[in-house]
């Protein structure tokens, strides 16, 4: 066997370069993203134990070499049976929903203004929207601790204007959580809206106006439907991280602002109940996946008609 045929044989046996390009990131994601999920799913069916890790094994080899699978549905029963958890889910959805709506109401005219600004201004304004995204999320939330405090500038201003007579309790309320959410996720809302509005064909708006549409009608009949995709994308980008948010309710919310991210955190770190934390994570995941699929289906149906 000569050298060339040996080399060919080796090439046949060893995977080609393209194989590695796909396999390396694929294996990484399988190991560090997919398998962890399966473990969460497994632990959500386990029993809590006084050990490290604090769970009983799910798969057990008995002495007769039989694989015994011990699934406990009690964690899910616990999650759905306790009004605390149900309430945490409802609170999360409510707070994320209201925050998304507020971000949309503020973000839409801002995106509109940026997209319609003179071209020299547009890049600067765009950068100003993106910039907060790069500065520490934690520190930006922290900034509101000072602003909303009893002796903070917002209360100071309201007192000075004579609108209130004693400082309001702004921190540790749902109001503070809404402010923190909109503040943190506004850029996520503006970016897709901006690209949708920028693509808008101005001739259509002019045509509608020429044909006698009032400005409000032009907006609701043409601008809004044509930028629907941007609205969808922006709302998803705000709603999804907001539902599972931990830092904002932990810093700005009160003891009764029970959001699900915070409950998972507390179950895990404070109560060391890994099975219930896992069960909560699974329920949250199913909730989010269901929501995304539902929205995709609505969007697909609208496109079909």
């Amino acid at each position: 066997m000569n050298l060339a045929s040996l080399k060919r044989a080796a090439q046949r046996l060893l995977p080609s370069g393209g194989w590695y390009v796909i396999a390396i990131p694929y294996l990484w994601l399988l190991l560090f993203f997919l398998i962890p999920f399966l473990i969460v799913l497994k632990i959500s069916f386990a029993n809590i134990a006084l050990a490290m890790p604090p769970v009983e094994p799910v798969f057990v080899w008995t002495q007769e070499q039989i694989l015994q699978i011990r699934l406990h549905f009690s964690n899910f029963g616990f999650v759905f049976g306790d009004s605390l958890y149900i309430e945490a889910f409802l609170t999360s959805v409510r707070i994320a929903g209201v925050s998304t709506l507020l971000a949309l109401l503020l973000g839409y005219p801002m995106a509109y203004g940026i997209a319609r600004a003179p071209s020299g201004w547009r890049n600067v304004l765009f950068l100003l929207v993106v910039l907060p995204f790069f500065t520490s999320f934690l520190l930006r939330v922290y900034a509101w601790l000072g602003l909303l405090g009893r002796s903070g500038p917002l209360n100071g201003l309201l007192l000075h204007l004579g609108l209130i007579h004693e400082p309001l309790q702004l921190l540790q309320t749902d109001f503070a959580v809404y402010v923190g959410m909109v503040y943190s996720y506004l850029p996520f809302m503006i970016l897709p809206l901006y690209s949708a509005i920028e693509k808008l064909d101005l001739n259509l708006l002019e045509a509608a106006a020429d044909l006698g549409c009032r400005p409000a009608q032009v907006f609701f009949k043409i601008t809004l439907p044509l930028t629907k995709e941007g609205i969808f994308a922006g709302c998803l980008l705000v709603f999804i991280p907001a539902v599972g948010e931990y830092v904002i309710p932990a810093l700005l919310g009160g003891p009764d602002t029970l959001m699900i991210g915070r409950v998972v955190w507390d179950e895990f770190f404070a109560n060391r109940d890994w099975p219930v934390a896992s069960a909560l994570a699974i329920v949250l995941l199913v909730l989010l996946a269901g929501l995304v699929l539902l929205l995709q289906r609505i969007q697909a149906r609208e496109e079909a008609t």
Partner: protein
Amino acid sequence: MNERRSLVVLSAMVFGFAFLYLPILAMMVYSFNASRLVTVWDSVNSPTIAWYRELFDNTALLDAARLSFQIATTNATGAVILGTLAAYALDRYRLFKGRGAFNVLTTAPMVLPEVITGLSLLLLFVALEQTVGWPRGRGAVTITIAHITFSMAYVIVIVKARLATVDRSIEEAALDLGARPWKVFAVITLPLIASAIASGWVLAFILSWDDLVITSFVSGPSSTTLPQLVFSKVRLGISPDINALATILVLLVTTCVASAGIYMVRAERRRLRDAQMAFEDGV
């Protein structure tokens, strides 16, 4: 434009940008306040740089910052390597088994709540330690692995978008002239997507540098990153040295992002000019 509508747009912009920037500016101003009661301005002794001086004497904080920097650098490099490979695989190999699943796996980490990512990775590390004995305990290594896993998704988005705009005929010409595939990638594709890789690196660095939730799940008792230290402190309320720290970090990041932006605009302009020249030479 209609008068009333432009008024709505204008007031939303003024309010919106004030809303985005006033809290940061207020924090910066308060960092020079001498009073320990952060929001009560001590007009006699202010402005002062006392809190900045205190910051640089705080060894726990400096250690945490060093650890965060190390993790963020390693993470950004790892995320860029894996992310570029994945983006290349998705852009160039249209047909391979499990491509659909791969596509989902590459985008899912971006939309997943951080508590779930953190919890699942910790459970994996615990299970791995029990079965294969690696990684021993949790610390910088597990934090870095966790960060690479979620930040590579962002690199993939950026690099994939750039790969889609690369003119394939140049690569094909090189292949026709006998260059090996990896050489084509190194000599032609890589320089073309270099600026996207650079911005992916910066983004991955910042995501890691900022992360609190995932880090808290996968870190050990001996490893405290800067966000963890800041969080444990601000949970107890506002403190003047955190204002000083925030001011430094915000200014640092602003400088970095602004220079990266300018660099990218220049690179883009140069790319267009080169393309134009090549076209004119051809004609």
